[in-house]
């Protein structure tokens, strides 16, 4: 087919679509809804994955994480705070002994515990009740991306002064605009000196339970003393010496952990890049569900396009007759109607992408999720919309081309 004829079909189709614009708008609504929901879901998923990955310092193979297995429900104390976390995390906790065990494994370089305690924090005057203590050590910044706004990270050489690092929101709440560095805060009536303040952290929408902006980072041993060894040990991060055999060290670590837990396999050692598997699997399940709904919507939209094209063909039977009488071949008639269907669904695709962009803006404004619409996503969704036009436009176009000219001419 020559370019000139495509151009003229295009012009013609645009005119026809414009003439029946209301009918066509309702027709492509299905495609708009379907495509915009697909694009929104995928962009949200992309955004969440990006945020999860952005939280990790490195996804290299020698960065590992020890997580509890889901079956581990019984062997920790019945502290109500801990139970609260447990119900949130759905996972359970590690044994407190798992951290020293991991530290002692040969080949594991730096180990950082990640324990959680919900508590209230006060500066002597005002109290923040829903703060979280993160019991960790000075290695944490090697694993999680936690830049400091001011001050220093906690270290273990600060005895006897108990030092902490607090989150941005907590600092604002307790100290307003004043610099909190060097100030004292009280946790369970114990004084702690603020040594640093974290930069604002974009919290993960689905993954981590910890709101770092509202957290107090405290040394693990201090936290154990504070809570009488009742820290809810959520995870332990570890870095294996890159010169060691990764698999061997990992299996040694796993067997040591099992041994210390009475030969029960209630821990799991994985690469840090797989840490967010739980949230990712929930995410992918959600994505799949919405994708199915969106696919049905696209199917309905496609059928709508097919219907409106059938109507268009029926309305223009006489025109088809004239065109055939003056020499249009079947292929040329097919092209005419197919291009019309493609333009129709393409317009639906463009509006759908724009709509999903607007929805994403609302998501950014109202939640912590930052959806990402990539160029590839736009191109793929536009290609999909064109494909819908091709698939659902071809049957009416084929029907139009098969009309016998003399019968079509009589129909006026």
């Amino acid at each position, binding site marked *: 087919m020559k370019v000139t004829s495509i151009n003229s079909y295009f012009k*013609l189709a645009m005119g026809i679509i414009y003439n029946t614009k209301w009918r066509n708008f309702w027709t492509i609504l299905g495609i708009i809804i379907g495509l915009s929901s697909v694009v929104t879901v995928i962009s949200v998923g992309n955004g969440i994955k990006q945020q999860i990955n952005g939280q990790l310092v490195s996804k290299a193979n020698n960065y590992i994480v020890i997580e509890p297995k889901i079956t581990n429900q019984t062997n920790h104390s019945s502290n109500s705070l801990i139970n609260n976390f447990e119900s949130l995390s759905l996972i359970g906790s590690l044994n407190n002994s798992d951290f020293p065990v991991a530290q002692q494994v040969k080949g594991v370089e730096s180990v950082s515990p990640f324990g959680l305690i919900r508590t209230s924090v006060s500066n002597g005057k005002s109290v923040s009740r829903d703060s979280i203590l993160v019991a960790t050590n000075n290695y944490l910044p090697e694993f999680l991306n936690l830049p400091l706004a001011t001050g220093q990270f906690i270290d273990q050489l600060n005895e006897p002064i108990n030092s902490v690092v607090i989150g941005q929101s907590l600092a604002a709440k307790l100290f307003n605009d004043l610099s909190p560095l060097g100030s004292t805060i009280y946790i369970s009536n114990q004084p702690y000196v603020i040594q640093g303040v974290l930069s604002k952290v974009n919290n993960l929408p689905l993954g981590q339970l910890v709101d770092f902006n509202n957290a107090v980072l405290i040394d693990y041993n201090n936290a154990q003393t504070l809570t009488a060894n009742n820290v809810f040990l959520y995870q332990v991060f570890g870095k294996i010496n890159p010169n060691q055999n990764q698999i061997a060290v990992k299996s040694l670590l796993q067997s040591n952990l099992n041994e210390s837990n009475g030969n029960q396999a209630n821990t799991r050692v994985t690469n840090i890049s797989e840490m967010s598997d739980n949230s990712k699997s929930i995410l992918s399940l959600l994505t799949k569900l919405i994708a199915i709904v969106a696919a049905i919507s696209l199917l309905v939209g496609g059928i709508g396009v097919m219907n409106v094209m059938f109507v268009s063909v029926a309305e223009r039977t006489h*025109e088809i007759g*004239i065109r*055939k009488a*003056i*020499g*249009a*071949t*079947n292929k040329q008639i097919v092209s005419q109607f197919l291009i019309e269907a493609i333009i129709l669904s393409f317009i639906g695709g463009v509006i759908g992408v724009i709509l999903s962009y607007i929805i994403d803006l609302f998501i950014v404004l109202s939640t912590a999720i930052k959806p990402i619409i990539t160029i590839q996503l736009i191109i793929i969704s536009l290609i999909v919309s064109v494909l819908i036009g091709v698939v659902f436009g071809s049957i009416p176009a084929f029907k139009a081309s098969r009309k016998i000219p003399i019968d079509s*001419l009589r129909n006026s």
Partner: protein
Amino acid sequence: MALIKLDEISKIFGFGDATSLALDSVSLKIEKGEFVAVMGPSGSGKSTLMNIIGLLDKPTQGTYNLDNKSVARLKPNQAAKIRRDTIGFVFQSSNLLNRLNVLDNVSLPLAYKGVSARRRSKLASDILSRVGISDKEYFFPNQLSGGQLQSAAIARALINNPKLIIADEPTGNLDSAGSMLVMELLTEIHRSGNTIIFVTHNPELTRYASRVVYMKDGAIVQDEITPYGEMAKIAKKLLNPSLSRTDEDNFAGVSILMHRINNDKNPLSRKRTKKKVIKKKLK
């Protein structure tokens, strides 16, 4: 060699009991450069014949050679290409596409041939000035008069420089001024060497033709060569039916007489009397 050679062409419509023989073994030869008028009463098969000659329809039986090629059994796309390249159609209603302006309508056959847009416009423009409506290029069909519409339709038929122009009652929707305009146009085209076949009900228009074919009941019953400017004999007969009496006239007359004589047996008249009785009763 004849441009059109129809041999024993028959066309049957419908199935089973409802079949009708639209064309009954029609044989016809039309030489290049002829200007043929096809006449006949409604339902005589004129349009069916035109459709078969114009490759819009296939004959049920018989052979058809157009320009020395057998075209009776072509595939749809082959027929479309021959229609595009060698045949120009003018219909009773102009059959222009309302969505396109006159220029685009006229250049449409060229678009299907793959001619570039610029060249299309130029050719269409030339043809439109030839048919005398170059000032209406950017008008839409609903803004033109009947004569102008047919002029545009003729321009569209001419755009591919076809060997054969088929006009199925081109003046059927026009007043006499419009008819004259269209016929003058066709005559001028004929003078430049095209073969033209046109269907008409108007006996006056046979003056323009070089040959008149008269059809009845799907067959050609009369075929005469006429000098230009003179009405065909058959056309004169149609204008002045009193000049002669045919068997059919006699049959029709006898039939009417019989109805009058057997007034009581005529169901129509009986009904009429019944109604009268009812009316009287009501009074």
